[in-house]
């Protein structure tokens, strides 16, 4: 059925089929603007006994329909389309991460060059990268073959060599895949989908080596020259194969694909798309994070070298329930304890971690548990962001242009494109952030973990609507952006943070904040946090005069005048410097953490503990 013209889209039903829950939202045109009006959810039914994902979709859609007073499913269990007489919807779109999402294996010639580009393409398409095979990954060929055989990815992305570059290395990689005879995760009947996006001269040789073994698709080289990445064709091929092979073999997905009016996307890929759309339309740099129980996804869109660069990383072992133990092991208990403003020793912390491991799906019932979880989340987010910054780099292996002025400051390729000073919007989603009892807690977790510098707007995804909007952006970008700004995001406020360091207690910056007929001014000593209440619909004119060497966005020591937006939290002035330093002594650290918690009014009941 052809899609209605964008101006004729009035009712949109979107679902996100997760591993456990299928979430449905209804987007309607209200007074000329697209708004998310109702939402409903139902258990995902991809597993036995139902083994049909559409059952969960119908259940979720039925719930939304009942809430909206608009039947969306007919008596035969089919979605009603188009919308007519207060029934049905104009289009139906969906994302999916059921069954563990899209899992991929990528290969390249050099780990930091074509293999890294292949990884970026796969992650950007919403996949989880299980492993990266490269000539310099320090594994012997038999180990690489063994690894390919052990993994059961949904598909393989092969890259390597520039156009006209090495053929030998690329064919060698194909010769590793051929004897491994990789088996796909779903459906033993079909052959492993392999996308070749490497040196075009090597393509016939690769096809020769892999014929009759895998289902090979050849697309444009994702690194035609080392100076340029061309990830689009590879990402599109991943999406196509995701639908053709992976989804088609999951229970009920053939029906779901037929129902959907736009290609079903992997959930993280859709989140990435909406963030890119927002960054493009508003001309800003965005970082988004989705912290789950087992994994943490970080997305970023930064301007680099005159173009917008999107990156996504999945920190597979950083999460708040199944992976909590790994967070503690990677960060260390003292690092987690530093965020706890109450009396808590390492033993108690250890016990809480073990309890969470035993019962991963529990949610905090006491203030102590909440404080503990939020402390862990800071470290999980910090580590995930660290990994993201290391991955989101400029291209390696690129020629540099020098002048004699560069004698003592030669910068190498591969520098991170993520620059906290240039970050404009930080979006949070995931249970521990979205469901924090107080917005101040979400804001504090974001600031402590990501350490934004200068002026940064903070927001959270109210009901994890970003996947739905990502796929909607493909059909109707304007509608997606409207809903994103009006209903998806809850603006927490703006953080103005000083980068640099001086002695605690010395003046960090002076501020003047004017909003409406009110005016606040004062001095921020180094090491302090201050919250100025500024409502969601309010804006304020802010004038910051930093001390020498301190940068709030206009350069070290230079004053800054900006218009900032308020939010449910308000305007946060952060004079703690960057990077954040907390005292090593536990008691001193607790006092500092307590002072910060009180400054942001994070835990009003803190005195009762």
């Amino acid at each position: 059925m052809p899609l209605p013209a964008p101006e004729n889209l009035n009712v949109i039903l979107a679902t996100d089929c997760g591993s456990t829950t299928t979430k449905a939202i209804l987007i309607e045109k209200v007074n000329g603007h697209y708004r998310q009006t109702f939402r409903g959810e139902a258990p995902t039914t991809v597993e036995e006994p139902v083994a049909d994902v559409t059952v969960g979709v119908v259940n979720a859609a039925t719930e939304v329909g009942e809430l909206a007073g608009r039947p969306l499913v007919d008596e035969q269990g089919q979605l009603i389309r188009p919308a007519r007489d207060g029934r049905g919807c104009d289009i139906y779109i969906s994302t999916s991460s059921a069954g563990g999402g899209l899992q991929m294996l990528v290969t390249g010639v050099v780990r930091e060059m074509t293999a890294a580009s292949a990884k970026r393409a796969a992650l950007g398409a919403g996949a989880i990268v299980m492993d990266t095979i490269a000539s310099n990954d320090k594994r012997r060929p038999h180990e690489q073959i063994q690894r390919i055989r052990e993994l059961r990815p949904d598909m393989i992305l092969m890259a390597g060599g520039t156009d006209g570059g090495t053929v030998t290395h690329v064919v060698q990689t194909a010769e590793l895949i051929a004897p491994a005879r990789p088996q796909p995760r779903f459906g033993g009947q079909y052959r492993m989908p392999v996308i070749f996006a490497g040196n075009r001269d090597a393509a016939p040789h690769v096809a020769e080596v892999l014929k009759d073994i895998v289902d090979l698709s050849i697309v444009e080289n994702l690194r035609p020259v080392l100076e340029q990445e061309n990830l689009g064709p590879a990402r599109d091929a991943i999406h196509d194969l995701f639908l053709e092979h992976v989804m088609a073999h999951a229970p009920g997905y053939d029906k779901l694909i037929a129902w959907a009016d736009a290609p079903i996307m992997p959930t993280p890929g859709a989140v990435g798309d909406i963030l890119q759309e927002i960054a493009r339309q508003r001309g800003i740099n965005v970082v988004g994070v989705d912290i789950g129980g087992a994994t943490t996804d970080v997305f970023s869109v930064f301007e680099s070298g005159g173009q917008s660069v999107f990156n996504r990383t999945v920190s597979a072992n950083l999460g708040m329930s199944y992976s909590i133990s790994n967070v503690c092991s990677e960060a260390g208990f003292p690092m987690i304890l530093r965020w706890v403003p109450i009396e808590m020793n390492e033993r108690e912390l250890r016990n809480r971690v073990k309890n969470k491991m035993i019962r991963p799906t529990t949610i905090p019932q006491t203030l102590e548990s909440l404080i503990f979880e939020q402390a862990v989340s800071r470290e999980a987010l910090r580590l995930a962001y660290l990994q993201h910054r290391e991955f989101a780099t400029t291209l390696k292996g690129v020629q540099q242009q020098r002048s004699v002025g560069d004698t003592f400051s030669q910068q190498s390729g591969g520098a991170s494109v993520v620059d906290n000073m240039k970050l404009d919007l930080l979006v949070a989603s995931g249970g521990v952030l979205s469901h924090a009892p107080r917005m101040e807690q979400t804001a504090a977790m974001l600031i402590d973990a990501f350490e934004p510098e200068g002026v940064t707007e903070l927001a959270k995804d109210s009901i994890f609507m970003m996947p739905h909007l990502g796929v909607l952006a493909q059909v109707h970008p304007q509608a997606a952006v409207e809903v994103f700004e009006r209903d998806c995001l809850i603006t927490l406020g703006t953080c103005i943070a000083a980068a640099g360091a001086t002695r605690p207690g010395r003046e960090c910056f002076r501020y003047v904040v004017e909003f409406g007929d009110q005016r606040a001014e004062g001095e921020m000593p180094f090491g302090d946090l201050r919250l100025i209440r500024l409502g969601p619909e309010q804006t304020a004119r802010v004038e910051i005069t930093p001390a020498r060497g301190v940068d709030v966005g206009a350069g070290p020591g230079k004053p800054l005048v900006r218009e900032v937006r308020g939010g449910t939290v308000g305007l946060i002035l952060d004079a703690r410097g960057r990077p954040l330093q907390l005292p090593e002594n536990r008691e001193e650290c607790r006092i500092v953490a307590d002072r910060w918690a009180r400054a942001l009014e994070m835990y009003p009941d803190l005195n009762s503990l």
Partner: protein
Amino acid sequence: MLLPFRCLLLAFAGIAGLSVAAQAAPPSPPGAIEVRDAAWDAGTAVDLSLFPSADESQDAPLEYVVQMSHEQNGVFREMPATVESRSSNQVVLRVAGLTAGQEHWFRAAAVNEAGERSAWTAAGTSVSPVQQWFDGRKLGFLAILSTVCGSILAFIALARSGARLWIRRITGLDAIDEAVGRATEMGRPCLYIAGVQDLNEIETIAGITVLSRVAEKAAEYDATVVMPTSRSLVMTAARETTQAAYMTAGRPDAYQEDRIYYVTDEQFGFVAHVTGLMQREKPAACFYMGQFYAESLMLGETGNTVGAIQIAGTAQPAQLPFFVAACDYTLIGEEFFAASAYLSGDPDQLGSLKGQDVGKLVVAVLLFVGCGLLTLQNLAPSQTWAQAGADWLANSLLSSG
């Protein structure tokens, strides 16, 4: 009217002054003289400690002349003497230029401003200077040496104990992997030039050290390294180094000896070959590590033209600007020599590098202090201690004599 009168007055005063000087008596001789061997020297100096002449005052200190003889009443000859210290009841003079183990007799006399000399006062005893095992004037030198060597040893011990020693990032060395990776992806060779000088040059040796790393990476990535040399000895050393690197990487089979070859000793003959090779083979990575002269810019520009990532390293200040402008990364002097420690991460080399840094720090501090003292002395000439300090630094602490 007034000028002739003044001139007359001055002339009279001058004549009167002369007549006073002519009428002055020679000063009294110095008091008892005690002589002893100078401590911590090479046996060539003695110290004469004498009671000052009765005519000496704080306002008008007298000069003293010293004479030496090898016999008690032998022939005395005048010796240069420097005042070591002077107080109201003792003047210590240092007489140098003596012969160790030989007996010396001394006598001294006071000399006033008019050049009149007192009667001689002889020392009651003789002295035979003895050669000491350590020259005390080099104590400062010993302190610096101990500090530097001690630091090297301490840092080596620290590195061996597993402590992490921080070394500034050297981008050019980090970029080696990137350059070899580029060559691998593009399916083209890496070109390595170890300068145009022989193995007796320290820069050539440093170049061979870096070659080891490049060759190891090339073996790991399965890339090719081509190395024309302008000296046969360099070729031999490079072959052995490369072979060892391929073995370390576990790829001895991939080593190809004929990729490292001798071209000619002639500077521009060699350059002509290398630039021709670049144009034909279009290497994706070029390394210039060693001593270079006029060819630096020719090589750098040709490499740039063929689109190679270029990493250069030399200690020739005159060639550095050319390399910096034409190459992607340049190792400058010390960075080049530190390459071995930086790349290997070997505790002994790292400790040595850190220890040498302490030595450089000491030198920098002494330079800074010396410049400060001399500047101060120039600004305020009355501050004689500033000049004395600078002299001590130059003549005692840093003197090689």
